[in-house]
């Protein structure tokens, strides 16, 4: 932990586009304030690169408050970096030490092809949701909100699963690039609510099948996903997904 400004060495993955080969480039980040966020440090480095006539490092980012799930950096071998429970945009430089070398890579997974530098294509997640991540209700044709009571414990559990921000850290952290944590969180949210009950079997089968089609790996229960998830999504969701899937298949 530093309180003074720091000088850091960055080893950053640079790749022109999806068709080209990438490689690591080394840059110096000078006089970095510990109060900067990791992405603000990257902003400063990029300004220097532009001023020096070089191409800045492309990286995904948007809300910069840890909720949109856009930022996606593999920092020193960990998804979103060394601090548990935060995204890269909320990681602050006070978590690093002066003189440190920081390695920055994109998410690595077959199902998340690199578009440029640190930016990957995560549209596979959208397609999994399209396969069944919804309750089939049209606008307007619904009962009064309080006509569907939900036990507080169930509602709270469903919320905990629904807190997933879809960043893909779970896939990046998994040695098999499995998307089980992401898919199970969505399946769980609906499985725990009465609104999701009607379509629960169909939903889990379709979402798992789309997940497999996208080229994500299988789950071998190493639980790296939970350890690296910035929102603390629990692997118990995966257990629930397995139960849901089994139940759906057995009663198909």
């Amino acid at each position: 932990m530093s309180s003074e400004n720091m000088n850091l060495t960055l080893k950053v993955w640079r790749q022109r586009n999806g068709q080209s080969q990438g490689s690591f480039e080394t840059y110096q980040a000078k006089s970095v304030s510990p109060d900067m966020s990791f992405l603000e440090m990257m902003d400063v480095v990029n300004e220097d690169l532009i001023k020096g006539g070089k191409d800045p490092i492309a990286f995904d980012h948007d809300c910069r408050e840890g909720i949109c799930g856009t930022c996606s950096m593999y920092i020193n071998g960990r998804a979103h970096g060394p601090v548990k429970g935060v995204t890269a945009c909320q990681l602050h430089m006070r978590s690093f030490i002066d003189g440190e070398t920081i390695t920055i890579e994109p998410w690595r997974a077959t199902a998340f092809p690199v578009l440029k530098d640190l930016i990957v294509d995560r549209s596979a997640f959208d397609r999994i949701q399209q396969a069944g991540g919804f309750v089939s209700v049209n606008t307007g044709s619904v009962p009064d909100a309080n006509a569907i009571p939900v036990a507080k414990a169930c509602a709270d559990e469903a919320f905990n699963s629904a807190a997933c921000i879809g960043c893909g850290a779970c896939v990046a952290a998994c040695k098999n690039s499995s998307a089980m944590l992401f898919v199970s969180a969505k399946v769980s949210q609906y499985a725990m609510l009465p609104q999701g009950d009607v379509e629960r079997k169909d939903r889990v089968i379709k979402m798992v099948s789309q997940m497999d089609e996208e080229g994500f790996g299988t789950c071998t229960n190493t639980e790296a996903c939970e350890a690296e998830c910035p929102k603390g999504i629990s692997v118990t969701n995966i257990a629930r997904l397995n139960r849901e899937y089994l139940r759906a298949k057995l009663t198909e």
Partner: protein
Amino acid sequence: MTLDSKIPAGPLSEKWDNHKFKLKLVNPANKRKYDIIVVGTGLAGASAAASLAELGYNVKTFCFQDSPRRAHSIAAQGGINAAKNYRNDGDSVYRLFYDTIKGGDYRAREANVHRLAQVSVNIIDQCVAQGVPFAREYGGLLDNRSFGGAQVSRTFYAKGQTGQQLLLGAYSAMNRQIAEGKIKSYTRHEMLDVVLVDGQARGIIARDLVTGEIERHAGHAVLLCTGGYGNVFYLTTYARGSNGTAVWRAHKKGAYFGNPCFTQIHPTCIPVSGDHQSKLTLMSESLRNDGRIWVPKEKGDKRKPEAIPENERDYYLERIYPSFGNLVPRDIASRKAKEVCDEGRGVGSTGLAVYLDFADAIKRLGKDAVEAKYGNLFDMYKQITGEDPYQTPMRIYPAVHYTMGGLWVDYNLMTSVPGLYACGEANFSDHGANRLGASALMQGLADGYFVIPATLGDYLASVERKPISSDSPEFDAAEKAVKDGIEKLLSIKGNKTVHEFQRELGQIMWNHCGMARNEAGLKEGIEKIKQLRNEFWKDIHIPGTDQELNQNLEKAGRVADFLELGELMMVDALHRNESCGGHFREEFQTPEGEARRDDDNYTYVAAWEYKGEGQPEQLHKEKLDFESVTLTQRSYK
């Protein structure tokens, strides 16, 4: 063109129902013959796209993010209002309407706001049916909290992540329609122009942000659901990508801009820590339910907050506004924070902060209860500042958060360009000069789920059903203009980065058109923006090409638009010789320092018409008629 708001006749509470009956309908079998373009996939865009697709229209959605789910609605924390009166505390549709009109300082349309309050109850039903996990009580029914500007508990919430859960609900509804083939979703695409054919919106020009390709998309109507333009101030609570390009380019194509100077400054944000700062983080206003705001009574008191005894603290909101206390509307809470800091009583290393203290709440409710309510916000604060708010008061300061202004729309949400609509924060319609907390989510979803599905058909019923071709001189011209604009930006090859221009513009806006404005400052600001704009077009340096993923090129286009929009905001602020809501003109205040409206001369919507490059914009006035409420000076004492 004269402004026709198309407000229906009849008693306020019956206007919407009567209007819906009178609107023309498109027969179900004919709906599939219409193509609708929806730009932006936040709450307004996603809910509109899903609902229109459910009706049978063919919808194309566009977002610059990598997924519709990432739109900045996702970051809304506190909650969503609805006049359900589940608390039995005297709430009603009329009270929500009244609070919103009053909170907006009487600069919104009565009819629109009443409709908003009416459909608010349907929104909650819809979201619950989708599986949005709202907070619940032990009996299994929905929980509520109270929010600034209201004395009833009508806010529904999902911890501090209400926007996220509502957006994921709307996104799930969109996904269902994508699977059905009724929506085609274009991600990492940015709209760069609206195409008009015979004066009607018939499509857009968009850039594929990955390949750089310029694309044409044609349709029978275009909906802009692209959010607010607050990033003109640079340091804001908006996402870094939020921008005003879609609305500004539509404005240049003929859509009037309504009340551009009405900006909301949110009182509870984490203060600036240094020059590197790229954004300000909001702490939900719901914190004001239990946190107490104070500063030291003495100027320059640099003691730690714990060392300042109770009788040397000034809980200034509770002192000045005993009945609303810490729950006064946002504009008032922000301005008072600025005032105490200007007096030299601000806290923290910069002196630009006030305390938000939870010590009493922790004593009263226990740490666990406070954690259950606000845990994620406390964690976020700790992560950003390195301080623990369970132990020491939070430091907060106001930051730009929302723009009440936006494209002028009529009661049907159509802009002054036929076939071009604006929904959610992108329009000006419902919040007047100040938006109440938990009302942005309500308006975005009201527009998307319930208003536009009803009103769009009325326009389409009079439009020929044959497909619109993008192979036309109008599309040729629009595409060429977009390509020329990009080429011009890249050809300058100057010395300053986009980031530098954006920061300078933000400083000018904040200093001259921020929480308090005055004539001299605005005039000076306008000159400064003009200079900066000239410099931009001579000295911008954009690395890379247009044939690749180029984030600096994207930003440069947005900053170029902000450099024009910022000037219009100042022109609007300068012309409005009164103070109302978020627009505080120092020349117009009461002896107690409160905003002083001028209802005789300014009870209107200022709708600005673009007249060409370098030409002054023309002001059109839509007079606001109040039939149900009496205009009074807002009092929260």
